[in-house]
């Protein structure tokens, strides 16, 4: 059974992520203990809400240090929604806040004219994206469930696993080595989401 450490840093409800992983047979430990995170082989960084306070809590709680230690040890990280945005270099949500810098690019508002928040089922586009384990086995053009008001831009094309079109193309999923992330919510994306979480849990890379 794969053991997954789910970061609890007081940002949003982690219940549905936890249950989705458990339904796939994972043993999930929800924790705010940096030591447990540092020793993990699979780490999920969830998140709902605003970027700046989440970033602050991550640093202040020591979880950021734990997370970096885990990554140095070869752990696989999955950032979801705000947790995905935190992986980038910075966010321009209410002023500029530096991110974790694990992926290149910045988090910016949708362009004027796009309906915000972007809520609902939208298609993943993989044309021009890099193949990789994140979306392995997913039918082309699968729909997944999004809820967000900001989006990444300027990601390294080699890291992009999928785009989505809402007010123009943006990066919906990315991976750089052992750092994985999705702007959407796999735990709310039915069979497509289950497949992505299975890929994350699997030994293959």
């Amino acid at each position: 059974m794969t053991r997954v450490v789910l970061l609890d840093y007081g940002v949003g409800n982690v219940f549905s992520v936890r249950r989705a992983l458990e339904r796939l047979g994972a043993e999930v430990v929800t924790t705010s203990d940096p030591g447990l995170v540092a020793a993990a082989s699979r780490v999920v960084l969830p998140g709902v809400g605003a970027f700046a306070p989440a970033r602050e809590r991550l640093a202040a709680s020591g979880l950021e240090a734990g997370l970096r230690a885990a990554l140095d040890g070869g752990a696989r990280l999955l950032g979801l929604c705000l947790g995905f945005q935190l992986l980038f270099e910075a966010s321009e949500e209410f002023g500029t806040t530096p991110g974790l810098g694990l992926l290149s690019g910045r988090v910016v508002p949708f362009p004027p004219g796009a309906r915000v928040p972007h809520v609902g089922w939208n298609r993943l586009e993989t044309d021009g994206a890099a193949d990789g384990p994140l979306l392995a086995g997913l039918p082309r053009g699968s729909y997944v469930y999004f809820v967000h008001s900001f989006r990444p831009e300027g990601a390294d094309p080699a890291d992009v696993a999928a785009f989505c079109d809402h007010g123009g193309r943006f990066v919906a999923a990315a991976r750089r080595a052992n750092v994985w992330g999705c702007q959407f919510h796999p735990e709310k994306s039915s069979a497509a989401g289950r497949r992505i979480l299975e890929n994350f849990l699997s030994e293959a890379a």
Partner: protein
Amino acid sequence: MSLAVRVIPCLDVAGGRVVKGLKFENLRDAGDPVEAARRYEAEGADELCFLDVAASHEERGTLVGLVARVADVLSIPFTVGGGVRSVEDAAALLSAGADRVTVNTAAVADPALVTRLAERFGSQCVVVAVDAKKDGERYVVSTHGGRRITTTGLAEWVGEVTARGAGEILLTSMDADGTLAGFDLAMLKAARSATALPIVASGGAGDLAHFAPAVLEGGADAVLAASVFHDRVYTVGQVKRALAKAGVPVRPAIPAGLEEVAFDERGLVPVVVRDERTGAVLTLAWANEEALALTVETRSSHFWSRSRRELWKKGETSGNVQRVVRVSLDCDRDAVLYDVEPAGPACHTGARSCFSPISAIPVEGPGEGMMVDAPAARAAGDAADCSSAVPGFGGDPFGLGPLFEVVAARKAHPEPGSYTNRLLAKGVEKCAQKVGEEGVETALAAVTRDDAGLAAEIADLMYHVVVLMAARGLSPGAVAAELAERRQKRRGTRPEEK
């Protein structure tokens, strides 16, 4: 915009139970919201909506408990409403796992509630349910489930809640609701012109053709319906396919496993239909993707008629429907097997099977005549079985198939003087007792009687086992599946014995 238009089944709940029963085949408990939630997700629902119609303060705890149980199994978003009067009410539902809450009457009484909810949880969590009615030339907001009419105009109210931070409008036409005559397109347009927020159309859906106009003419971003789904008039998949045909973007609803089917250049795949109880081959027919999807969704055989060039449901006119127990895919993925419980003859001629002998081919061994029903090939072992689902009642070396048929027929249509019916009438306990007695007699015969005597006792025992299964409603397929699983395990753990 490529956001999919959502199809949302709505469940009315009270006291933690679904109020209107759900008419799914095989639903163990038609009032269990958790089971209903699972089924709707599997069918391709994009979201579920639970509305507590009792919504008394005493029952808040029950609703929160229900939300937690649903959240435990569901991997699509779900919205909960009914009686949300405060930020605290909403917080309880959201922390139990709901993705969104709806407010209705309480927001009309206290519009600032919408602001407070949006500030606390974010707009995306706040759905304002608007019930409206036509009043003369204008649409007005009604409350208390349509029993009270306010003087507030629909457009005015929609504009106000938009400004207050609502994330979505769930618009129910109290004039159209329950009529099954179609969505209220004029009302939808009136609301559409008053807000840029997503609008969920509700009230009046009764026909497949009703859904697309709500989107294309009414400007809705999602369609919600209750009775057409609960009464199994249409599956979620049917509604989505109708929307897609009309050019509305939807998240395709393809039942799990079917995306692997290799259709031929005409978009068809051959389907072998087998009697689940006897193993008899009943029909060879053809299906397209829609027929397969409908078969899986409704658990009733559907095919594509190559001559009439149309979809057809087996038994639609004759009443001889086939309840589908299992759909299996051939190893090459280019042939499908339906294991069915037929309600009557499979063939339009009235014959049980569509196959009848064209010439007698002598069969080696003790058998005689034709092999129309006896799937002797499968008796050779399932190594030869290419189908990928749990195999059916394989082989039938004892010729139990016809016995199952007779006992099932007696159960369905009791005959006066039938020993089987007398036994069944006495209940499971009596049938079980008979199995015990026959078991002892078989054991005794094994050490005291000759082969013919032992065979007679074994026949008695098997007959009573079949009756017991009928009394309990246990299908032979359940036993076959258990045996198949054991074979699998044995192979997995001790391959050298194979």
